[in-house]
């Protein structure tokens, strides 16, 4: 907590050693960094793009970009933050090149969303309903404007702290918070039928 308020401390970055070795020319270290970050990068991209194939494609692009621009990483943030930033930019670029037709995107998501099967998927009916819910949520995410979607995905799906999101997206923390709030409100409207919950005490 204290560390967060005082700003970033590079000593705490678990990737630093690998990054140093990579920047000194060790290709294996880069491969290890890719392995270390692929899951999260893929997840963020999947939530941003709504398709497994596209997320995998953009994830590859992300790591290639990273390899290309790795020398620009100056330890001003965690390496992971740098990685997410490259990923977010790749995702935004991809979306732009696909155009802004939200309905088409939503359609795409409804059709393509293949959420990973949950653990202990024994009941086919429950499983199908889970998958349906997952698709609905993903489609609702895609219906959000990107500037709201990205902070929401990073915060509520990935659980990154505000400070890191601020650095990934390049907006102040206060703006991050207000966007998350607006994104949640929009999502709640979109998913109203899924969130009928009993009155709490």
């Amino acid at each position: 907590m204290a560390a967060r308020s005082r700003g970033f401390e590079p000593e705490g970055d678990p990737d630093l050693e690998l990054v140093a070795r990579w920047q000194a020319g060790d290709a294996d270290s880069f491969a290890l960094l890719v392995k270390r970050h692929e899951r999260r990068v893929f997840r963020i991209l999947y939530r941003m793009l709504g398709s497994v194939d596209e997320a995998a494609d953009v994830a590859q692009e992300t790591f290639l970009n990273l390899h290309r621009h790795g020398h620009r990483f100056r330890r001003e943030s965690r390496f992971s933050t740098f990685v997410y930033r490259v990923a977010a930019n790749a995702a935004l670029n991809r979306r732009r090149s696909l155009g802004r037709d939200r309905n088409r995107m939503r359609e795409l998501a409804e059709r393509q969303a293949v959420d990973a099967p949950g653990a202990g998927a024994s009941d086919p009916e429950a499983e199908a309903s889970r998958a349906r819910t997952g698709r609905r949520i993903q489609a609702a995410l895609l219906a959000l404007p990107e500037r709201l979607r990205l902070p929401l995905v990073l915060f509520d799906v990935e659980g990154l702290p505000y400070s890191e999101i601020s650095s990934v997206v390049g907006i102040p923390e206060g703006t991050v918070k207000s966007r998350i709030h607006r994104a949640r409100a929009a999502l709640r409207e979109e998913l109203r039928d899924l969130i009928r919950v009993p009155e709490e005490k």
Partner: protein
Amino acid sequence: MRHDEVREALGRHLEGELGSAERRGVEQHLSVCDSCRAERRELRATVELLRGLPDPEPPAGLVPGVLRRLESAPAQPRGGLLARGLRAIARGTPLPVPIAALAAGLVLLALASSEEGRLAFQDAGGAGAPARSVEPAPSAAPERDGAFALAPTLELRAPTAPSVVIDADELEPVAMDPARGPRASRRRFVLPSGVGAGAAPAGEAGAALPPRPALAACVGEAAAQAGDPAAQCRPWLQGMLALAQYDPRGFLAEVEILPEREAAAWLAQLARFSREVRTSDAVASRLRSTPDARVVALARWFEPGPGERAR
């Protein structure tokens, strides 16, 4: 607390981010307001939906795919001019360069006096700190005789460098405006002790690379008319040449962060300056002897051209 204030604070309340006074206010309001309670419930349920999303697994081929594409990287379109040129070099593709075209676009800076094989650069201490002289590394190639002649259309032979034509209009606005000029580079480099006759005193081996000047201040007509551009450009040029000789990888790193469209112009400028101060052979041979293909590729900028050899 007012109703709308509570609404606004609900998100932060969910995250446990409210101070104790504000939290008490919100909770008090929630205990009496059904609609805010419902709102809070729904927000929480929304967040829970998101947090409960299953984690999709990345396809198994993701990492191997990245590594494979890196291995065949030459086929991959790579960022800058310089990078593309370097890649071409790595592939062994000869890329003849009409650098004369570059010279046509740029009135290259005429640098005043040369320093007879010496390379002086300001110490990191800045004002007050004495400039230090650095001899070329002992391993330097034998010096050519005769200074490099200044010619209006300079033929810089960089046979495998990317072909490039740059004119002042194309320079990035940031480079044209010294006030918003490129960020100062603070890279430190370390000279090996005992280099040259006037070896640096022990404990003083490091020096910061001076900030990179705006390209427009060093090349082009405006620069030529602006009095003494050399004064602005020289420290950085000298620092870069020292870096090239004593920390070639550091030199590469600095070259790689040059703005894409300026890289070739800067390299031409550096090559020219290194001829002026007669370090180009030393720089070229040091870069060539570095076990890094991309560093070696940079050496071509500093190698003497046929016209120079003839002299």
